[in-house]
């Protein structure tokens, strides 16, 4: 104990306790979204009638490779804005991974845009998942891309048609491998 107090002053110990509590709150908060989630059977994407062209972006992925959204033209694309501290973002991530497996042989791509975090933080989170995401995660370090898109809260997800237009959106977490959502995405893939 004496040794411990030599290593850390009392204010430093308090600071460490607070940071630890902060980590705990992120882990604890999924339970809050569960409160409301279990009462919501609706798993659907919202149709964007006007189908505006999606704002293009060029961002680096975890390997430092640059990914340009418009390079995916010709595929249906899921663009997910997320952060590790956002409980519903964490909750829906495994369902996005399952979706990517279901549609692995289809003209379908995923770009998960992480907002203002670094590689280390993202790796710490993905390492906790049962199945590490195999789809590209790109980094919007200054949130400039996020602000160019019609996003007010995280997570927000957009599904683009093969022409790069926004066909569907989802505000808040979803189970992306839900049959209703899968049918909507497949419908886009079948469309010309």
């Amino acid at each position: 104990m004496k040794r411990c107090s030599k290593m850390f002053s009392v204010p430093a110990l308090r600071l460490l306790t607070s940071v630890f509590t902060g980590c705990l709150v992120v882990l604890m908060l999924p339970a809050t979204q569960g409160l409301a989630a279990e009462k919501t059977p609706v798993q659907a994407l919202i149709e964007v009638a006007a189908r505006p062209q999606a704002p293009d972006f060029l961002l680096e992925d975890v390997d430092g490779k640059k990914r340009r959204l418009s390079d995916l033209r010709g595929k249906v694309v899921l663009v997910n804005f997320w952060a590790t501290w956002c409980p519903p973002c964490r909750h829906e991530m495994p369902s996005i991974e399952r979706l990517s497996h279901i549609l692995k042989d289809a003209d379908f791509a995923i770009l998960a845009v992480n907002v203002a975090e670094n590689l280390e933080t993202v790796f710490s989170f993905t390492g906790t998942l049962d199945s590490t995401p195999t789809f590209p995660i790109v980094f919007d370090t200054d949130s400039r891309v996020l602000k160019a898109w019609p996003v007010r809260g995280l997570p927000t997800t957009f599904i683009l048609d093969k022409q790069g237009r926004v066909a569907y959106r989802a505000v808040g977490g979803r189970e992306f491998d839900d049959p209703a959502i899968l049918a909507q995405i497949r419908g886009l893939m079948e469309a010309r």
Partner: protein
Amino acid sequence: MPVKQSLTSTIFGFILGLSIIAADAAETKHEVNPETGVQSWEFHDQGVAFTIMQITPDQARGFFLARGFDRQAVDYYASYCVFMTIVRNEAVPESLSYNLADWRFYGKDGKTRKLKLKEDWLKEWRKRKVTEPAIIAFEWSQHPSTQTFEVGDWNQGMTTYALPPESLFDLKFRWKVNGVIHEAMLKDVQCAGTTPAH
């Protein structure tokens, strides 16, 4: 937990040419997490769900210290009463919208107050020269001030109330469907204490 039907505001609303409907037959629930002691309040009415859950000052401090805020700034934020807030369109077929600037809370001192919105906080953080990465994390962790939801849409984020720990208050929240304003009151909501209950 009863929902107060605000007949007065309904009458005034009609006089003003606005239609304000106080929530009828709403289901509200107050829960205490047996493991953490954290309290939450839930409201459900005609396809709208609203949940607030206590965040302790230590949790708020820890969350923002881990995201680049300095001790002085997090102490300031944690001096406010903070709730994790979830709004969800469970089954309203039309668009549901809300603006946190329209919400009010009533402390036991009888005063009516507005929530402190994320835009107010952002101005203060910029004056205090908080770093931009920390500001970005803050901005997206707070509940959006305005939002429009279709069925299945929802958001989760923090809301703040200028009250000391353990204060009791009533919260009147509003939302709009098809141009009609709806409102409801959550009674006897309590801010988290300075120490965890367990």
